[in-house]
Structure formats: structure tokens, C-alpha cells
């Protein structure tokens, strides 16, 4: 089996992969990181969102080989304590979309300047959810941004 080297969830890793496997398959089947979900397999729903070099990507559209040398982060690496706002705001029902939502929200929160040019609803538009109506999701991301701003000592 071919291999690639990458940084996976913060640690250097050498990963075996099937040549035809998408990054999503390698994560889920090869590495048993099943937090990343498959909702559509063609870049429409966002359930498979991971961060590649800090930017959200649909891992169902990324051939594994393309992730060589990249910094790949999955939901499993997002620090749980930062997720409290999403938990409290009721951002999840069935939870099938949630890992993707969490990863996109982590991207928004590490790039808070994005909200100067985009609304949260636009920034989260790549993540479909059939259950929650997005209300809790948007609230949770907003509260997360507020929390981050507070801890940076800026005005919330």
C-alpha cells in the first residue's frame, strides 16, 4: 500500500492508503477516525469537513494523495473545552452533521476577522443540517467568538 506523510491532528504521521481512497475514506476506514461523516460524498453537505492547512475542505472531494505534507485536522482534534458554546446552544440533534459544523466553526473562530466581511450564516453555509434549523449552530458559533474575544481581552 502506498504511504503519505502528513501532520494529522497535530502530530507527524505516516499513513497507508488505498490509491483510490478519498481522504474521507482514509480517515474513516484506514485510521478509524469516524468522527468525520459522509453525508453526500460529493461536496454538497459539509458533514465530511476537515481542516487542511487551516482551511475547511470537504474530505470527500480530496484524493488522499493530495493531503501529502499537509496539516490535516479532524473533529477529533478540536479541543473539547472550546465546544462548550455549541453544546449549550443546542447546535445538535441527531448529530450527523455536527462534526462538520464543529470543524467549520473552529475555522471561523481561528479567523475572527472573517466576520467583518461575511455573516455567520454565510460562513456556515457549507454545512447542511436536516434537524436543528441552524439556530443553535449560529448561536453557538457566535457565543464561541464572544468567548474567544473575551479571553483575548478585547471587547466581546
Amino acid at each position: 500500500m502506498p504511504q503519505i506523510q502528513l501532520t494529522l491532528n497535530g502530530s507527524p504521521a505516516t499513513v497507508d492508503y488505498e490509491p483510490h481512497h478519498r481522504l474521507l475514506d482514509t480517515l474513516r476506514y484506514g485510521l478509524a477516525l469516524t468522527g468525520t461523516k459522509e453525508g453526500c460524498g460529493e461536496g454538497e453537505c459539509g458533514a465530511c469537513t476537515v481542516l487542511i492547512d487551516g482551511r475547511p475542505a470537504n474530505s470527500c472531494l480530496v484524493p488522499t494523495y493530495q493531503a501529502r505534507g499537509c496539516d490535516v485536522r479532524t473533529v477529533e482534534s478540536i479541543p473539547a473545552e472550546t465546544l462548550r458554546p455549541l453544546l449549550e446552544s443546542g447546535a445538535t440533534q441527531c448529530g450527523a452533521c455536527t462534526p462538520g459544523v464543529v470543524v467549520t466553526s473552529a475555522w471561523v473562530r481561528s479567523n475572527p476577522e472573517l466576520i467583518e466581511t461575511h455573516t455567520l450564516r454565510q460562513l456556515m453555509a457549507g454545512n447542511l443540517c436536516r434537524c436543528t434549523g441552524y439556530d443553535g449552530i449560529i448561536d453557538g458559533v457566535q457565543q464561541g467568538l464572544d468567548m474567544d474575544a473575551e479571553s483575548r481581552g478585547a471587547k466581546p
Partner: protein
Amino acid sequence: MADRTMPSRSPLPNRPMNDGIAMSDDANRLDGVAKVTGSAKYGRDVMPKNGVFVSFIRCPWGHAQARSIDEEAASAVAGVLEVEITGREGRYHGEPIGHIAAESLAALRRARSALNIEWDPEDADTEIGSPEASHDDDPDGADHVLEAVYTTPVQTHSSLETHGTSIDHMGDRAIIYASTQGTFSAREGMDRVLGMPQSRFKVVCEFVGGGFGSKLNGAGKEGLTAGRIAAKYGRPAWLFCDRAEEHLDTGNRPSSRTHVRIGYRDDGTIVGGSVRTWGGVGVAGGGGGVVMPSNRYDLGRIRKQHADVRFNGGGPRAFRAPGHPQGAFAEELMIDEVATATGRDPLELRMKLDREDERRSMYELGARLIGWKRRQPTGTQASVLRRGFGIGSTSWNRFPARADAEVVIHPDASVEVRTGSQDIGTGQRTAMAIVVARQLGVPLDVVHVSIGDSSLPAGPASGGSVTATNTSLAMLEAADNLKETFLERIAAQLGVVAGALKIREGDIMQDDRRMMTWQEACAALGSAVSGRGSRSRRSDRQYSGSGHSMGVQFVDLEVDSETGVIHLNRIVAIQSCGRVICRKTAESQIIGGVIQGLSFALFEDKLLDRNTGAMVNPNLEFYRIAGPADMPKIEPVLWEGNQTGIRPLGEPPTIPTAGAIACAVFNAVGSPVRDLPLRPDRVLDAIEGGRS
């Protein structure tokens, strides 16, 4: 790896209207941590080692015969275990005509193309069409008659986790990881295909990625086929649909056509008439019912006839309030058409027609919250952006279902709530923990829930909003039985009479004196104690309460009269459900119901090509569901009314939304759009046609 623990309490969300109504105002979903951290395991996530992958071979046309199939070539693909063709005719796009089993998903894919099937397409019917309605004579006492046809498209459930089952076959026993709404019904037929008695296997579905009715039919063809393969090879088997298959062959809300011929008086009173409805059921035998009239309004004497129409499409399955949203769309818009024709305010007319006084109070509150006063009479706006307001109403009865429950106090002071039925995302797990914590008198954080496992006490399949309403009765009885045994044993230890003891916030109290802490008491037990309960006539009498859930929704939107695009501003959803258990999950259910109604109103449409019968949008790009950017501000209001006990909440909030939106669009543009979805081209046609 980061610390996976998080506090489970939080300050209140910002909806002061609902403060203090629920048993728990601040509890978070108990499985929220597992869900936000990605550690929750769904059926699709279970890929047992040495598993066999299975997929169906499906018809790509509305109706076709497979003339030639290269089974040999497909079987010869490396990694393929078997190719089985079970029929040659496909009666709808997506109908299985056989299956492939292989060592990997890639081998499955290669084998599918190696089949090289040559199809002879045949003519396909793709829709209800325009059946003739023979209406009776005009109703007596009418000054005017409204004749109109309302249609709704096929809507697919579009759960984010697709249908399927993963079977861990371990020789003489098995675990079925099913994505199902019925942990117990998923066992049916499985014994036969596995060749194992039900005592040798169990169904586990701790987490289910949505269902909305589409996962009610037991293990389904996915589970049974996977079971057959698992048994045949004595290995684990995995079969999950992809998104296209999910749209094509896992059920839907059937399309509908409602033809009304209704009489009304100058004052807006509706005096009756005839309602003819048709449901588009694909190749299924039935299931296309349209709930119109709803019986919420006094519409005089209605003669109703219904017929299901078959065509070349996948059959329907129950979908959150089956038959209701499509019926409510026709009914609400019809009422607004009558109101407008008679120069009456639709709110005032509903106040008159509605059969429930309680809903009249809801209308008053809703009108105030949405700002109904700002509504301009229908058809009076000439600006580019036109504001519209609309109303819809809803109701849902409680249906009895079988449910058992067990609650256990362990010596380590934890309380285990045991129910086999599933939490499909509704918050059942959280709700049952809250119910038990309150009834026992212990803090929520000592309560743990074991759920979604057929070796636990039996519970209903989650359809018709029966899960919480019935399981809670069993839970209440179990908690009471447990409390009695527990206090008897503690009283014996303390040498007091059991009747003198109470549990308060976990403390064992005699009068106002704390005799023992929760930890001390549980440790003193030495062994676990348990109590059982079930939903029965007796528990019904004691705990069930009365009344049915009802609600109203108000919509405020804008229509761009140049583009036909609808922009939703706000939706106020007032909903009663008896005693609210968990505020956050209840609010979330309401908002979730609204968004599915909204998405039905504006976007969703399973389109079959009229020439080939094939679905042209079997994906989430062109089969559009509402996304974050489509959402208005939704304000759920938990209504405390005449209902007592725990009443249904899953279905009712999705019923009125599409109708209310259609009414608001009518109000804005002056002509009704009688076909869902309310696409821009239809809105423009209505503006230009100016019929009203």
C-alpha cells in the same frame, strides 16, 4: 488528545418567553458531548474487521428491462464475492434488481460498471397529472364558490445519515448496528435471514443520524440483505446507501393534489363543499393520504374523496406528520383566499373558523409577537419589495404505544435509566433522564441513560411522536416503584418507617433533617436496586394527563416582485406539548419542525424527467434543502395551556409552516401561488397573472 469532558449545565439561552416552563430549563443534551467531539458511533461508523461490503444494483430509468447483464465480468472483478440478479424489470429509478457483495467499496464500484447492463427503457409515468374531479353541486347557502387546485411535490426525508445496517457476525451470534427508528422492529425478519434465533442477536442503535419517518420499516431491505450476506459468508456485512440511493429508494412524502370547490358567504363563513385529493405514491399500493380538511376549522359540511395515483417512482414512507403539511398548505391558503375575496382579515377569519378556544389565545399572542398590525391588505402593495404576513395552525393527538422501562440505583450512587428504544435526534435520552431525576428526587448528573439496544426494556418505534409520550409513563412508574423499594431498604437500615423518608436533591430526608447523603445511602445498599414500569392502563391513569398538542405559526416575509425571490424575516411558532421536559431540546424540536416545513415550502422537489422517468436531482445540490443562509429568525414559544402530562412534540411544528408561508406570499403579491415549492418563476407568474 484534548480532555473530552465538559460541564453539562449552562446559563439560559436568550428566549425569556420560555423561562421556567420546563422541568429542566438549563440541561444540555446528554449526548451532546459525544456528538460535538465526534466520538458518537453511528451504524455507518461501525466497520467490523473482515467485513463484506454489499450494494444494490439499481434501475437507472423510470421503467426499463435489463436486456443484457454481464454477470460473469462483474463476478470476475478482483474482490467480488457474488453477484446476484433477482429480476430484470425496474419499475422506477433506483429500484433494486439484485446486489453485489465484495471485499471493498472499490470492488463494488468496479463490479457495478463491469455489469455493463443494457437497458430497454419503456414509457414511464412520472406524476399525478391532472385527474378530472367530478364535484357535486354547489353547497347550500353559499354566496360564492371558490374552485382551486393546490399541489405539493414529492419531498424526500434527506436524513444526513443514510439508510443502512452494519452487521457484526460472530459465528453463533451477531450484533446489528442499524440506522433505524425501531430498535425492536429491526429484529423482525432478521432471525430468518441470519438463521439465528432472536435470542442470539441484538440490535444496537445508540446514535441515529435522523430518520423523520423513513427509518420506521424495521431493518428494511438494506438490513435484511446485509443479514443474508453476513449469514452466507459467516462474516460481518456492511450496506449503506449513498445520497442518490437515499433520494431514490428510501421513501418520501408523496406528492399531492387537492381540488377544492368550496362555498362561502359574504361574511367569510365557509359553508362546505367538496374536497378531492390525490396522493402520488409511486409504485406503492397506498400511503398518499392528504389530511384536508384538518378538522381544526369549521368549514361546514365537506364531502371528501381521496385516491392514490401510481406512477414510476419510489413509494412513500411516513414522513413527519404524514399527510398533514400538504393538506395544511391547501387548507390555509384556501382560507386566505376566501378571506381576501370577502375583504376580511385572515386572522379575524381564523378566530371565527377555528374550533379551539385555546388556539384563539395563541393567535392573539402570535399576532402581537409578529406585529400583525403592520400587515397591509392583500394585493395593495406596488413596491418592488412587498411585505407579507401569514398564519397556519396545527394539532396532534397522543397515540398509545407499548413501552417498558427499568431504572436502577447502583451502589456507586449512579442511576441507570434503561430503555431499548432509540434517540433519533429528538432528545429522548435527555428527556428520560430528566423525567427520572425529577421523579426520584436526585440531581440530573447522577443519571445515565442506556438506550437504543434491543436487550434493554422494549419501547416503541419512533413515529407519530410516540416515543417520549409513552416511554415517559413507563419511566415514571419505574421510578416510583424503585423509590419505594429503595426507601424501604434505607428505612430498615436507619430503623425508621419507610413512609417517613423522602429524597430531596439526592439527600435522604426525614421531615427536614438530612439522614444520609445520596452517596451514603447508595453505598449502604450493598447491591443495586431496580424498579420496572410499563405503559399500561394503570400508568396511563396515573401519569398520562390529557389534552392534545396544538399550535399556531406566524410568518413575516418579503417578496422581491422583480425576481420572485422570497426572503423570510421571522417565524413565530407557538406550540403546546403539555408539560415540557427539557426546554432546550423542546425549542430545538420546534425550530427543526419549522425548518423542514420552510424547506418544503420554498425548495424541495424530487423531479422525475418526464421522458426517461429518471430523477434529475438525486443529490443535495439540485435537490435543495434549506441551508444556514436561508433561515429567518425562528422564535419558538412553549405554550402552557390546558394540556397536562407529556404530550407530543415531534410532528406538530412541521405541519403549518408551508401553509403559513404560502399565505404570506399571497398577502405580499396579491395572487395565490397554489403549487409548492414557491419557486421564483411561480411567484412571478402569480404577480403577472394577477389572478385572485
